[in-house]
């Protein structure tokens, strides 16, 4: 898991997202993938087509390991989408999509 440092510039602004059915507040500067790593860590992020568990690797749009369902659309690149108020995010941890 990744927690916010006490040394972070204050005040940080937050947005409320719905992550796997649960409403959570996260810093508004985060990408979707970063928000998931912040709230849940890398365990359970995604299951790959070969059945193995996977999680974000690069966070800069290269590796495609961050695929996630955003507002009902599966396989979005979570590291390239900033979180928005009211966004609905579902991890693809159980069944592989695509």
């Amino acid at each position, binding site marked *: 898991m*990744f927690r916010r*440092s006490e*040394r972070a*510039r204050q005040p*940080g602004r937050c947005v409320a997202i719905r992550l796997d059915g649960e409403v959570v507040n996260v810093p508004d500067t985060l990408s979707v993938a970063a928000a998931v790593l912040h709230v849940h860590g890398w365990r359970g992020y995604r299951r790959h087509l070969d059945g193995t568990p*996977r*999680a974000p690797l*690069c*966070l800069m749009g*290269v590796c495609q390991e961050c695929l996630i369902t955003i507002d009902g659309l599966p396989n979005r690149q979570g590291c390239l989408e900033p979180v928005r108020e009211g966004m609905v995010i579902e991890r693809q941890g159980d069944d592989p999509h695509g």
Partner: protein
Amino acid sequence: MAERRHTDIAVIGAGPAGMAAALTLSEAGLRPVVFDMNATPGGQIYRQLAAPQVDATLMGQEYIAGRSLVDAFVTADIDYRPLSRVWWLDRDGEGYVLGVLQQGHSQQWHADRLILASGAMERGWPFPGWQLPGVMYAGAAQILLKQAALLPSAAPILAGSGPLLYLLAWQYLQAGRPPALVLDMAPASRYRTLMRHPVRAWHGRSYLLKGMRLIADLRRAGVAIRQGVSGLRASGSDALERIHYRHAGTWRSLPGTLLLTHFGVVPEPQLMRSLQLRQHWQHEQQCFVPDRDATLSAGTNLWIAGDGGGIGGARNAEREGHLAGFAAIASLGRQPTKRRSATTRRLLAARRRDLAARPLLDALFRVPEGWLAEQPPETLVCRCEAVTRGELDEAIAQGGSGPNQLKAFTRCGMGPCQGRQCGESVTRLLASRTRRSPDDIGYYHIRPPVHSITLGELAADDFDNTNN
């Protein structure tokens, strides 16, 4: 029929090179369109610097040094388009046509001139277990730090070779979350390299001093550092549980939940490859780089600036951005002003000085060319299609002699990352097995789209209509 949008000049990327190029153009009275994948300008190095989440005492001076560039960029008259992915790029007469995906909408642009500043990416470097959740790039960890001051909840282990490794360790130390262990995999011969190249060492003295200072701070704080590590494995069932490393000829292991790796950065190849620009293997940097002339031109009305043209770091990228901007202005037939000529000379001199230090850094942080050939056969090379080193070797044994053949035989490189993470590994493996040079072997043919795009996104705007 829907109109194609037109611009005199487009810049792809808003890192230091792209921002500098756009600023130079805008100072000359042009209004470039800048497409960038990220939500805010700065690229990877100056990410989030427009609204920093962490301060200089934590990140180091290099980060804050980009502030004036970012500030100038956001206030200049530039058609800046964040969250825009160029998924398709092709020649169109003397200019270029770009397919751009901006927040779910596709647009088609024609640019008379193009500056490519799409930067670098982490070098894909396969080792057993690197696909496990809990293994991430050090660059990704730094992105979390910049984006919202996020730190690992438990002390991570850092492994690899390259300046970023110690920098991240140091930043974590400043933030009160020192790593449990740093596994330095830079070649043991590096001190010999220093002795053998005193002139290079002199050129690179500021980098060397800085590196030594970081290491001294870490040691003083009690961070364990192992130098000369020559093997790495990650294991666990649903996520990382243990890290194994070879040190002084012996394998050791320890429990860990987060392993942050870094094996250097290489130019992001996709757009250059899809234009079929000529590339050559750069032996010092151990990667393919595009051919460019002295004005950074890589073709008609095309310039490549920054790390995408070869790794030179943020300061060099900024200089190259300005230089590419000047070259583009000159191509419009404008007479160079006195000031522009003087600035160009100054930039070229600074660039020469800075690049003179590069071979030293490259030598200090060389990655072992034969690495992949020595990994266990079950090591994943292509993470997307789950293709192992063993499967690739079987295909080679059956006569696969080039990257495209291996792709056809095994699906290696056919997944959503389009070979970004396995392309050079495949070239390397073929080079090891067939004793040919990487130039001889080459790289995958890359065809658009270079970013995944859905039919819905294509239909969401005028893109397909324009071809009617």
